[in-house]
């Protein structure tokens, strides 16, 4: 039990108490395995970190959270030593807290707004909100008695029965946005069926983000809990092929949510891109994560290996691919990025972890050609050197080629992680669905409703590639609107 007072009067920040570090596997150990790097807080560490929160009267942190978690509320419960209470607060806003605590870029979201971050020299820096969220979700699940139902894990309540089976809703795509819709509506007793194209539910959580960052057992735990609530998951069903939106409406689904993501990889259209050894990050990561190729030949999916590996790009996907390549035995892994380290969109913790593990940054350059040998196997990449120009529309400085300045990097494997495009399969099979100029679905920003009445959309298929939590935020908004329409004032 914490001795912290429970009143919410803002206090002056206490004298400098540094952020509580989270234990991690040492870099040289962790690159030999595929286990989670960050080990999570102990009870004492969580207690110490929770105590740093000053319970602001007007908490800014909450504004930084795309699903507006009552952060002050759950940390306040932790300060009182009430773990189930803290979990309940989290669950009211977020159906995947164990996931978000691990993968959100907190430094640009909740923690970026924390008042303690405004003057870190005096305060020790923002409260580690993500680490506390993760602690609450993991510890609550771990402390449940073995006989407790999965439903209890997800909601903190034992009631699992479908109260309104006649109110059925379908989600196409089984990623974070659809899972949020399913979790939210199922908790209200609405029957949700999720149609997933792959053989495992979770979208990017299972095929994209590696085990060492997000153990798949955690994703499965959250999905099992939704199943216990009555949500149904149909794998191997491709939206637009095996099932059409109009069919679902005809079958009596009261609403359809489209959360199919932006999974189509972008290539660079430079010569030699189809040489053997050049992969999209999606393929590389799908083989390793969904296909468990890190465990080949015990699992059947093979993966391509090389001593020297280049990863093109500077986002989270690039970091995941680079760190995966290290774990699969590469001697040198280079991140090839056309801007500088400061502009990299990757989550800060992942970039730091990657550098600790030995990933080498090659900034201010981009591929001109993937050079192959006589058998079309990649042997090197010809690089164009860059310098930074004026800021572009995104606010980041535009990389400009330095004429005549090229370099050659000898690698046997190149992984392209320069972004994704909308997957057209479902879009082409859904007449009447309005798309924007970039080919993404047009949806009302408040409700998520598309140009087709009763059909909602959210996540990357609306915004383009973004974060897990923003997809969940969109899912939450759509689910709220669906619930309002189906249940009226009850919702």
């Amino acid at each position, binding site marked *: 039990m914490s001795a912290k007072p429970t009143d919410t009067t803002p206090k002056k920040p206490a004298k400098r108490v540094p952020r509580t570090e989270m234990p991690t596997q040492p870099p040289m150990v962790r690159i030999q395995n595929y286990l989670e790097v960050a080990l999570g807080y102990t009870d004492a560490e969580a207690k110490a970190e929770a105590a740093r929160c000053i319970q602001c009267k007007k908490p800014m942190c909450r504004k930084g959270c795309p699903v507006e978690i009552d952060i002050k509320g759950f940390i306040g419960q932790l300060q009182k030593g009430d773990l189930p209470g803290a979990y309940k607060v989290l669950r009211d806003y977020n159906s995947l807290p164990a996931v978000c605590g691990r993968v959100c870029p907190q430094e640009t979201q909740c923690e970026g707004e924390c008042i303690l971050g405004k003057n870190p020299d005096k305060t020790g820096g923002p409260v580690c909100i993500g680490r506390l969220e993760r602690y609450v979700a993991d510890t609550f699940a771990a402390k449940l008695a073995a006989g407790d139902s999965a439903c209890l894990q997800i909601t903190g309540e034992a009631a699992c029965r479908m109260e309104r089976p006649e109110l059925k809703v379908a989600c196409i795509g089984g990623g974070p946005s659809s899972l949020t819709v399913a979790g939210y509506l199922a908790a209200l007793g609405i029957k949700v069926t999720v149609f997933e194209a792959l053989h495992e539910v979770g979208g990017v959580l299972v095929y994209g983000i590696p085990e060492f960052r997000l153990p798949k057992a955690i994703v499965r735990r959250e999905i099992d809990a939704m199943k216990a609530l009555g949500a149904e998951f149909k794998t191997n069903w491709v939206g637009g092929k095996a099932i059409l939106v109009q069919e679902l409406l005809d079958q009596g689904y009261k609403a359809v949510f489209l959360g199919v993501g932006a999974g189509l*990889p972008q*290539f660079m259209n430079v010569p030699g891109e189809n040489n053997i050894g050049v992969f999209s990050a999606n*393929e590389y990561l799908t083989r390793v994560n969904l296909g468990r190729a890190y465990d080949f030949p015990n699992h059947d999916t093979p993966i391509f290996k090389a001593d020297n590996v280049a990863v093109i790009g500077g986002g989270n996907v690039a970091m995941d691919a680079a760190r995966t390549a290290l774990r699969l035995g590469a001697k040198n892994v280079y991140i090839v990025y056309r801007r500088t380290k400061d502009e990299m969109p990757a989550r800060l913790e992942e970039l730091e972890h990657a550098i600790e593990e030995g990933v080498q940054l090659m900034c201010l350059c981009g591929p001109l050609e993937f050079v192959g040998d006589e058998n079309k196997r990649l042997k090197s990449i010809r690089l164009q050197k860059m310098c930074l120009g004026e800021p572009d529309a995104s606010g980041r400085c535009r990389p400009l080629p330095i004429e005549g300045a090229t370099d050659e990097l000898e690698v046997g494997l190149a992984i392209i992680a320069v972004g994704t495009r909308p*997957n*057209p399969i479902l879009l082409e099979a859904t007449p009447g669905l309005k798309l924007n100029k970039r080919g993404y679905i047009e949806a009302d920003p408040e409700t998520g409703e598309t140009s087709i009445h009763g059909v909602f959309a959210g996540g990357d298929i609306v915004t383009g590639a973004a974060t897990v939590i923003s997809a969940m935020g969109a899912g939450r908004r759509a689910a709220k609107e669906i619930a309002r329409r189906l249940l009226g004032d009850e919702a």
Partner: protein
Amino acid sequence: MSYRILQKKILIPGQTTLLVIDAPHVASKAKPGNFIILRTSEKGERIPLTIADCDAEAGTVTIVFLVVGKSTAELNTFEEGMSIPDFCGPLGKPTHIDKQGTVICVGGGTGVAAMHHIAKGHAAAGNHVVAVIGARNKDLLLFCNELGNFCPEVLVATDDGSFGHKGFVTEVLKKRLEEDKDVSEVVAIGPVPMMEAVAKVTKPFGVKTTVSLNSIMVDGIGMCGACRCTVGGETKFACVDGPEFDGHQVDFGELRQRLGQFRPEEQESMKLFQHKCQCGEGK
């Protein structure tokens, strides 16, 4: 959910097998040219197989596979009544079929099974379908009788001359094209060298030639680009843009090389599987 095997027919012992799978939602949507992706176990890889036939009413999908590696060898151990854990489809663009006159469908090896479904589609659209199939000898010919049910002409080539023309399907095709100037399309499905040879034969005749590419695939829904190939100088994804493309535009050399990407791993996996089989540890 899993997918029950309603019928297993060994077409060529130890080599080629036909399975009829209970998968109503796939059968109701599948068209000629579509394929499926399946997994044989929880640890299995995703492998693509072209749909050889389907029956929407019965809710069944027929697949035919050649035992070439671990996954197909394991699939061959499945018996009637057993279930396949993952069976996803229909995938890919269906064959473009309209009434156009005479269509020659060329099939080689296990490709004859996929060709059978497409030929059936063309026949149903009212086309005069000529089937040209080949094998090493007459015992290895696939779907010969079935094709006869809707193709007015079934032309056969065997390497040893035990049935039909002695030699390759391309020789039969060339002769047929020389005799008949009104062929509107040639469709070829089979091993890469065979499709490449067909495209080479038809080129001087200026006949539209469609080939079905068998690239390496992972997800089969456009997410990864493993199956990318060069068609007319542009990169295409065989799983969503194809698998059928203009045979005169395909870079077959690149396709052949890309198909060999994982050969050492494939051999390692197969060796391990065979070892397990011999000592009775595995299935």
